């Protein structure tokens, strides 16, 4: 059997039509789902920003540095004296070295304290600057 007759006999038209439809449906569904993947991932990544899922976060009180103790104030003044012997933009490691050889008490943690109080600030070039305003606020 040949020609249209053979196609009709073996249900060729229906097989082709349904076959093409299934391939199309499969790929259209896949195309739709993969086009949503990145959006779903974004949604998942930002789930904390969605009002519905937002957890009530108790805002932690901003940590203000407590006022300097007399001992800390004295240490800060000694550091200030050392800084005065250096350039405006000074080397932090040199300052620590000077503080250590000058016999300052607990030079490491004192220096850290000054950094936290922003009395000593980075210039973002690898050196540090003395912040007079912060010094006056905490020490004077």
């Amino acid at each position, binding site marked *: *059997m*040949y*020609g*249209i007759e*053979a*196609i009709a006999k*073996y249900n*060729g*038209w229906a*097989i*082709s*039509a*349904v*076959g*093409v439809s*299934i*391939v*199309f*449906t*499969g*790929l*259209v*569904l*896949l*195309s*739709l*789902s*993969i*086009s949503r*993947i*990145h959006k779903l*991932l974004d949604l998942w990544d930002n789930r904390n920003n969605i009002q519905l899922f937002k957890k009530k976060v108790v805002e932690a009180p901003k940590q203000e540095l407590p006022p300097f103790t007399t001992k800390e104030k004295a240490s800060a003044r000694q550091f200030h004296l050392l800084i005065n012997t250096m350039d405006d933009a000074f080397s932090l490691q040199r300052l620590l070295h000077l503080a250590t050889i000058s016999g300052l008490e607990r030079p490491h943690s004192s220096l850290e304290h000054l950094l936290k109080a922003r009395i000593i600030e980075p210039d973002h070039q690898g050196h540090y600057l003395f912040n007079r305003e912060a010094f006056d606020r905490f020490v004077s």
Partner: protein
Amino acid sequence: METLFLDFFHNTGFFLCDYRNIIMILVGMVFIYLGIAKDYEPLLLVPIGFGMLMGNIPVFKGLGLGIYETNSVLHYLYMGVTQGVYPPLIFLGIGAMTDFSTLLARPVLMLLGAAAQAGIFITFLGALALGFTPHEAASIGIIGGADGPTAIFLTAKLAPTLIGPIAVAAYSYMALVPVIQPPIMRLLTTRKERLIRMEEPREVSKREKMLFPIVAFLLCCFLAPAALPLLGMLCFGNLLKEAVVTERLAVAARTSIIDSVTILLGVTVGASTQGDVFLTTKSVGIFFLGALSFCVATACGLLFAKFMNLFLKEKINPLLGAAGVSAVPDSARVVQVVGQREDPTNFLLMHAMAPNISGVIGSAIAAGVLWSFMS
């Protein structure tokens, strides 16, 4: 002594030789030539070509030498083809070497891969009209999917006697993609259309790439469960690649496993083309319909891209439609070459990979659908 000599002579290839064996040996040599000298799919054409030489050495029946003798070594190796073992393993390797990010970046291009599969069903109708049985017609139609492993897989299930001609036709046409497709592409598109530039695809995250094989597998296999062996292995291979932690397995799949299976598949498919089995009027019909299938698939992809442009604000270059036939990555390369002939600064390769890869998925679904309809 004279009798001994005569007996020996009667068992030599020179005596047993048939003109059909000579023809197939010459075809095998052409395959080897095309693979080595012209660089047309050498990894496939060279093993198939040499397999043709092996399969067409005339042998004395009963010695357990020929591929169709149940006790021969070649027969055991050929079981990987007839039992449908090799194609899923090749898909595993393809999955482990394919980057689906272009597809993820522009999923709409997936429709071009679907459109090109229409060629399979149109050829199926053509084969029925030419007097092939429905099982044979389905196996012939799948040549238009331009996917050798898929064609072999379906033919092994539906019409095992046609594996040789169908595999050879599929791989020959895949190798001839750079010759077959460009004239059709130029015929069906205007110069203005070929000059269309595609916008840059968005960047795709690693997590998207990891999720894709799982989503694609579940969705496609729930829809067409018969595509499970091929799509399952393709998606599994891709997950191995994208999961990073399984990199060693992915490397094995895309190198040693796929290479070993390609060698076995190529040689045994080649050896199955024994002159007396291969050179029949059916084979001529298969070659004719296979070529038609390829051309129709290319045309369907191109025309569908033009159809999509009627609705899209950002037009797509219709040449991409030709990459919907899943000969990866050859048809994508052809798109690039044809596009650059009009505008050397227009890079379409990356965009063409999207329909190209979706063509692989589409042809596997089509094979699954045909298999389930026929069984």
